[in-house]
């Protein structure tokens, strides 16, 4: 029968080495990044770029390992994580409930939206001096400026997520006799989870961005401070080491949130 011949190409594909497609997918995803890093290394070692400004990657790596071995950066990592962690947790614990409320109850949204838009358009860094005046130069003002900037992405994403829940699903639940609170917990909330996670990831990125800015402006510890400090002291490899650590923190936070989303939203395909 002619149908059987249709199966042939597939059967042939199975004979190829198993690792081959996986390898190709890794190459297509990370090839450009690897190329960039290789170019950096070659350009720095051959003197194509000034190696005092762009030290070779191995110099940066050994500076990082040395600093960590001497215990130099650990305290900075800890304080940076503490600042951004507290601010992020506060932003999430205010932003998600408030966003659910605003998305669900129209009068509350109408009343709060103008002031929300006004605050959102005011740069958190522009307000940092105000926060310092109000809260002093200590930890509180730093955490607060990060919290301030981190609140808006999660709040807006949650409001949007709740408002965009398919009306037809809500009507279906209503038609089956679900009470309003049941519709909220069984339909609205689960439907909004993917949008809330987008907000969480945006907020996590914002928290790290603001962390660096706040630490550069008014701190004497933290990774952001170390970047500035290393530059002042012309320890360029250490400066890059701190920058790479920050990038790694951002990637790790994002990966953690994606893993949590995968667990919670097995039903939907997540294209990170």
């Amino acid at each position: 029968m002619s149908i059987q011949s249709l199966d042939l190409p597939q059967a042939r594909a199975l004979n190829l080495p198993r690792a081959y497609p996986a390898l190709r997918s890794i190459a297509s995803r990370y090839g450009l990044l690897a190329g960039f890093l290789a170019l950096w290394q070659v350009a720095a070692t051959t003197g194509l770029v000034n190696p005092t400004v762009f030290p070779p990657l191995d110099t940066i790596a050994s500076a990082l390992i040395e600093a960590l071995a001497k215990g130099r950066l650990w305290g900075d990592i800890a304080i940076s994580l503490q600042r951004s962690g507290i601010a992020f947790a506060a932003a999430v614990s205010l932003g998600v409930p408030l966003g659910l409320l605003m998305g669900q109850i129209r009068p509350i949204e109408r009343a709060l939206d103008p002031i929300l838009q006004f605050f959102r358009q005011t740069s958190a860094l522009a307000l940092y001096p105000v926060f310092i005046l109000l809260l002093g130069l200590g930890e509180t003002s730093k955490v607060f400026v990060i919290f301030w900037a981190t609140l808006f992405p999660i709040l807006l994403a949650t409001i949007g997520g709740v408002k965009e829940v398919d009306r037809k699903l809500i009507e279906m639940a209503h038609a089956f006799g679900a009470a309003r609170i049941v519709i909220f917990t069984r339909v609205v909330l689960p439907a909004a989870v993917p949008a809330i996670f987008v907000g969480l990831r945006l907020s996590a990125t914002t928290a790290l961005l603001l962390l660096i800015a706040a630490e550069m402006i008014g701190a004497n510890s933290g990774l952001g401070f170390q970047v500035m400090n290393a530059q002042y002291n012309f320890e360029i490899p250490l400066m890059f080491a701190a920058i790479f650590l920050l990038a790694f923190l951002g990637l790790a936070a994002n990966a953690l949130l994606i893993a949590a989303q995968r667990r919670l939203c097995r039903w939907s395909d997540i294209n990170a």
Partner: protein
Amino acid sequence: MSEITESRRGEVALRGLSKSFALNGQRLNVLRDINLDVAGGEALAIVGPSGCGKTTLLRILAGLEVPESGEVRIDGAPTSGVGRERAIIFQEPRLLPWLTVLQNVAFGQSVRGASQEKSEARARHYIELVGLSGFINAFPRQLSGGMAQRVGIARALTVQPEILLLDEPFGALDAMTKLTMQEELARIWAEEKVTMLLVTHDLEEAAFLADRVLVLPLEKGAQPRVINIDLPRPRARSSAKFVALRSRLMAEFGLH
């Protein structure tokens, strides 16, 4: 399931039902003074041209819309809003994408406060009835259109309604799936002995499934007409009587 069948009646009576919408500042009468009695266990199809108000009528019956005047009586008692004796099957399956087939089918029961074991046990029964036992743990995105619609049907049956309301349930399915689903629905209706009110734009579907067909006119002055489909069941689409009845229905719409 015998404890409920004893007291089940499922009579529907419409008395002077009217509804209009405001469109560009003009009042548009969609339904005007509809009177109708549907016996318990009867299958009634509601047909009519687009814009005749057939979906509005079904939504009023489901309690999702409020009539301007007149009332819906179920087993003799006037109703308002949604009720436990009715269940609706929409044109789209409207499944919750984060729930499995089993959880989706149990959903209607569980939001009414039934325990998880009870609602899932009943859900399993109806999943079997619609022929999806092999897909109990599948998620909606893994189902075809026809399978998803079967889940919607099972969900409505699981609450064991007296009255099953269907809003163009097979309108979005391909022709072959549609025929199969019509046959399954005829079988399920016979097994479950529920009152079935079915909105459709498919005259053959109406002739195949219904005891009577309510034809809603587009011109609001005209009276709705009721056509009896007195064909033996199970019905054969190719029988001479069926073909004759279908032609008569089509003639109502000026089709020959």
